[in-house]
């Protein structure tokens, strides 16, 4: 994943503010992308366990985060 390598370089580079801001922005984007994919999987009938397996987290974690939606 080249983004991650770039990110590591950038984050350990020169002005910390630039790197930190980029990391925070990436985290926000990641959260939104995860929500889109989880909703899509649920609409297609995926179980929480199946979604959790793909995300590499526990079923409880996914359900707690998205269960109400």
């Amino acid at each position: 994943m080249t983004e991650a390598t770039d990110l590591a370089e950038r984050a350990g580079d020169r002005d910390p503010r630039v790197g930190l801001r980029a990391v925070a922005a990436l985290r926000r984007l990641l959260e939104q992308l995860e929500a889109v994919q989880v909703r899509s999987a649920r609409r297609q009938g995926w179980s929480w366990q199946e979604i959790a397996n793909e995300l590499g987290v526990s079923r409880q974690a996914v359900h707690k985060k998205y269960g109400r939606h």
Partner: protein
Amino acid sequence: MFERFTEDARAVVKGAVVQAEEAGARSVAAEHLLLALLDREGSRASFALTALGLGDRRDAVRAALERARRRGGLTQAETDALAGLGIDVSGIVARVEEAHGVGALSGERRGGGRWTGHRPFEREAKDVLTGALRAATGRRDRRIGDEHILLALTARPGVPAEVLADHGVTHESVTRVLHGGGEARAS
């Protein structure tokens, strides 16, 4: 705290809930407070916005908020920071919308049945209201008006403040038109 809110400020808080509802959002965000503020007429905040030239450009602000919503609530500054990493946010938005529909990254449900449950205020929206209280207290105003909500929105980093600043509405400029420091400055 709510009992110290003026009629206009209460209308903004209630209006924000309606804005969230109409957008299909599950919670009330700071941008919903701003959208509700833009709807006000004859209030102190409305006066400030008009004085800053926003009178007939409110739709431009609404459009800018909509664009930010479509890119998952990222500010332009955040989008630029990601571009610095080689991540093209607009490219990602385009692909996600292609697969999941327009506005997919906004997290809102359009036409997919309304969320009828309780709509809590997000932490950032609560922070804005607390900031409004602080703005009023700082000026020793007894009541919290919608102008204090506007001041709080401009003071807090995020999409609403960024969009407002792009339209010439900053904490400084709002303070100036509201309280003037005596008289209008010539330059």
